[in-house]
């Protein structure tokens, strides 16, 4: 499949990232090249410690990179000043994490409306949209509950609602089913597929789960900080490989 550069919503080239704890230096990413098309659902898989979460953090701009470049919607994300990058995340990105990362002091609906408020939406508009999303994820009757009053699956639905509430161009999910039982995990996966299809949002999912991988359009496999299979060309991607 031939695709023009602009069709890629994410385009990472030669991304290096090293962690240093003072005494020890750990190369986490050793030259990642990755392209993701708009509306695609991509699963990044690999053994523990291979750099999946670091890839997600670096590509989404949550973490800095040592070298290389990451374009998201044709913008070099790491060249943006911190405030602009934050604004960009607020407007165009959604995040789903394994441990939900909901704000425990806010109710479900308040958690969901938070990205809209950050983007400057009016209270009324934000509330309505948040309730709609909660309805879509089947939690309209839990809108005023605090996270502590919800089950794991319900919390993850709230997280998904929050990730999608601002119509993001791209949703980053880090082990979204990792903390859930298989039945709830299945529900969450179905929900993500439905939202991906209905809204055409791009999903990049870091996962260990074979089931999650199977529902994705494409699987990117990693090992030792390298993409060993990007699911596109079937060729290994490494520091010395050519840029597509």
């Amino acid at each position, binding site marked *: 499949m031939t695709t023009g550069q602009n069709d890629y919503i994410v385009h990472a080239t030669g991304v290096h990232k090293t962690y240093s704890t003072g005494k020890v230096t750990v190369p986490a990413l050793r030259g990642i090249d990755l392209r993701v098309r708009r509306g695609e659902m991509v699963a990044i898989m690999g053994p523990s410690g291979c750099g999946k*979460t*670091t890839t997600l*953090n*670096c590509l*989404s701009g*949550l*973490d*800095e990179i040592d070298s290389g470049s990451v374009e998201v919607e044709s913008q070099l994300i790491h060249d943006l000043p*911190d*405030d602009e990058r*934050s*604004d*960009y*995340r*607020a*407007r165009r*990105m959604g*995040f789903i*994490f394994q*441990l939900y*990362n*909901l*704000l*425990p*002091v*806010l109710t479900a609906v*308040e958690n969901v409306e*938070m*990205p809209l*408020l*950050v*983007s*400057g*939406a*009016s*209270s009324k508009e934000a509330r309505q949209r948040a309730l709609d999303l909660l309805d879509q994820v089947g939690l309209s009757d839990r809108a005023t509950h605090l996270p*502590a009053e919800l089950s794991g699956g319900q919390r993850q639905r709230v997280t998904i609602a*929050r990730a999608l509430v601002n119509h993001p161009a791209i949703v980053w999910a880090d082990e979204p089913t990792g903390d859930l039982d298989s039945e709830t995990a299945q529900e969450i996966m179905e929900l993500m597929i439905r939202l991906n299809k209905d809204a055409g949002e791009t999903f990049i999912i870091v996962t260990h789960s074979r089931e999650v991988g199977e529902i994705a359009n494409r699987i990117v496999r990693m090992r030792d900080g390298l993409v060993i299979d990007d699911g596109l060309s079937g060729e290994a991607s490494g520091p010395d490989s050519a840029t597509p």
Partner: protein
Amino acid sequence: MEELFGVPMSVLMFVLLGIFLGALLVVVVMALRNTVMLKLGIRPISRRPGMTALIIIGVMLSTIIISAAFGTADTLTYSIRDVAINGLRNIDEIIVPARTGEGDDFRRSFISMDRFEQLQSELAGDSRIDGLMPQFAEAVPAVNPDENLSEGQMNLVGIDPAYLSGFGNLRTASGDDLPLEDMADSEAYVNERAARELELQAGGRLRIFVDDQPIDLTVAGIAENGSFAGIQPTILLTLSRTQEIFGKPRSINSISVSNRGGALSGNDLSEEVTRDLRARFTDRQVAARLKDTLNQPVFLDALGKRRDDTTDTDLKASLDVLFLDLQADSLNESLVAALADSDISAVIVDVLGDDMREIQREAVTLLSELSEFLVLDIKFDTLRGADQAGTAVSTFFLTFSIFSIASGIMLIFLIFVLLAGARKSEMGMARAIGAKRRHLVQMFVFEGTAYALVSAAIGVILGLVVSALMVGVLNSVFAALDDDFTLQLNFTAPTIIVSYCLGMVITFATVAVSAYRVSHLDIVSAVRNLPERLVVSVPPSLSSRLTGLLKGIFRPAVFLWRSIRHVLKLDVGPAAMQLVLAIIWLTLVPWLLDVLIQLFRLIWPYLLRGWLLILIGVGTSAATLGIETLRGWSWFGAGVSLTIVGIGLLARAVFARGNVRADVLDRVVFTATGVIILVFWALPTSVFRPITGDLGGGVSVMFVSGVAMVGAAVWTVMYNADLVLGALQFATGRFRQLRPVLVTSVAYPLSSKFRTGMTLAMFALVIFTLTVMSILTQTFGTQFVETRIATGGWDIEGTVNLTTPIDDIRSEIDGIETIELSQFEAIGGYIGIPVQIREVEAEDQEWNGVQFRGADDGYLHSSSFDLKLIAEGFGPTSADVFAAMQSDPTLVVVGGSLLDDSQDQEGQAVARVFHEVSYDDESMTPIEIELREPRTRTTVRLKVVGVVDRIHSSGSGVIGSKAAVDQAAPFPIPITTYQFRVANLDESKEISQDIERAFLANGMQTVVLEEAFDEQLAATRGFFRLFTGFMALGLFVGIAALGVVSTRAVVERRQQIGMLRALGYRRSMIQLSFLFESSFVAILGVVIGALLGIVLAYNAVSDIRADENIDTISFSIPWIQMIVILGLTYFFSLLATYIPARQASKVYPAQALRYE
């Protein structure tokens, strides 16, 4: 400083040291036995130096406050003692005549040298006394003619150098021996103070005036201050020369006594020497008659009752001896000494009540004839006064900083609860793998002890620094008052030890309590790091609680028994530990606390149900109303507050049985309870007066109402937190960018009710006291009325020396070039004499000491005192009454304070003198009184025909014609005080100086009353501000609390911060969120404290205005000061949060999300 809250410092030191060392020993033993927990406990200290520093700062604040209070008290005690010891040196007692005799005059009685020599030979064999000095002392006007400087009241002391043995040699300012015996008749020594004030030097000229006659002297040298040279401006002459100057050959007016030993050690014999001298000077025949008079069942019964009632152990013992001695067959020496003791004779007069009028009259007469001389134990008294002053200061400071200390304790508690939160999952894991609760307690105790040891030490040092700053402020106040007294910084070892131990013990106890609380955590929620949830256990059964109480009562025995059992098993470590615990418990304080805690556990379930609280509350209020000694608004209010809380709890228990949702029920019940308590305390006490009567107030009202109001307000706010959040969201609807920040910054503090409530309470309590103090300073630090009204229409006051009075001031002024009579609208004069009065018709025939103002016609004619009450037949105007007083010298008016119970300058209750009429009455009839001149015991009958309005601060005591006392005294009584009303107020200062210069020979010293009032008010404000500043130390506690809470919040919420950043929060929004969060708590605390403080201060001012009947007392808020205090509080609160907020904003989202 000798005592604190009635407990001797030495006892306090040993008890605290015992508890401290005991506790430390227990911790060391525990640490040795469980090194794993020790490591776990102290490991975080070195790992997080920033947090450790913050904790140490927070923990040491209470110690700083305690140490500063003690340090200031120490300095004051030392400074006064220094004045006494260096001022008196070897003079321990002073003997003065007790009766009047031939050749005496007004206020001056003499002792013949023959009597002195006789006395000297009588005491020659007494080894406790090593010196007697015949002395002639008088105050005279003195002038340095070369520099034209004068001193109206210079002491002139004549002593005989032949008797200096035992007193030590007098020295010159340069340290050489002072050769008094070589001095010529035309020479005089002056002390350093006199030399400074009159700018005198050796060889210079000095002129003194005696009986209007100038006497020129040459300054032979400058004597070192102290001993006979005194510390006030003093001229030193030989005795013979002094006698010659005053025309009193072989007469002296006092005898100084030196006890064996030095300046300080001589004081050890003072009590004994004084008692024996008093007994020696007692007339045995009069004492025998007095014994017979008092040895009657009616008096002995009353005396026995007084002995049983008194709490003063020394007095109780003395009265016990008196009680037995009076019933003995014959007069013994201990009875003679007791009767000669002025404290005992005061009790005797006091005990002689209404039903013993005849005995009272006779006893009082005999007491006046009992002694030939009065023995004044001047050094002993001064040193005791120094200790009492130190005790009073420390008590005062500690009392006023009680909220700050309480806030400090809350902060320590908060810190350790937060520390526990930080290690929750670690502790949960420890519990999961088998660690017991006590292990967790130990872990925290180890950590807490390490913090406490360091922070108490730093706190003591910083407290002493604060104390030094306060001493500096006090010295500037003294300097403004033109007082020569200077505080010299001094801290004693007991004070430092008590400060350290107290700080350490408070910290240790708080840590132990918080550790106990923490140890009860829920393992599952701790392991999973879920929100705080303590184990909610079913209360133990009644039998278990009763057993607990019994165990508490017998705890030391239990420890000892366990120790013995361990010894028998040769288990030395545990045996020693149990023994140490037994010893600690036997220091009583822990034992008492233990029993109280067990008792509290026993009744806790009933308190929670409300009914027991209602019983306690109603009982307390009823007791306050019914029992005279318990009367007080604080107790009554505390009882009512407990009742309201009890009713709330009872209602909750009753409605909980229905289908009401628990959270709704709690909100309704607790909100209603909080609001009702707030309303109760916010209402002025006058509202309840028809039911309660006048319960009196005092400083305790501020503390009780502070706790009740702040507690109720915080409680109400925290139970309605969501409404506050809703209101804020509504209010910030328009600011879209701020809204997400505001939502989180309010939601977080409101979700942690415990820590937010604690922090709020800390802020609110301290701000509450500061607000009350600031408003009271403003209200009472300003003059209520114009000076002229307060003084009864006078502008300048001048006093002349008793020995150099002015015959006719008007004609004298007429003859002086520099002053014109036309410069004055009025001139009046009077003499103030301490007299005793009693109502003729009253049941209580006790004599009351008051000041009598014996005035001349000019004063009576021109004073413009408004009379609050005018006796029937003497009105209708105040001027009519004063006119009547001129024509009839038996008529007098009295100050309003004599009509009600009041307090003297030391805060002691003073019973009202007049019982037939009250200040609030609408009318009065003339009251017949007897007035007695205390020295001669001559009595005259007078009639009170008016009561001076309290608006006139100068209108206190009894005001009448001087002619009234002329007949009571066997000597001519001179006018010594003159009052002037000037025609042009702007010229007051110049006229005042002209008068002083014109009447130099009379020792005239003038003061412009307006300036004097201003100075006094400035000093009052200075002291008030110092106390306010001291109390403001508590604000650091609140600010530190915010810093600690914020720092902890950054750590706790790291993941959430990461999430917020992922959601698009900018760095500035994170930072702002934390700052808003602190602002929310600080502003809410400040607003609650300030509003409640204003309400209480308003009520206090209204009550005082109503009680004192002074309409001109106006409530006013010192806005600028308040804004500065509140603004600085807010600023520093933000500053304390800024660093953690900045840290939070710098966190990379990915790092934060990874954080566990």
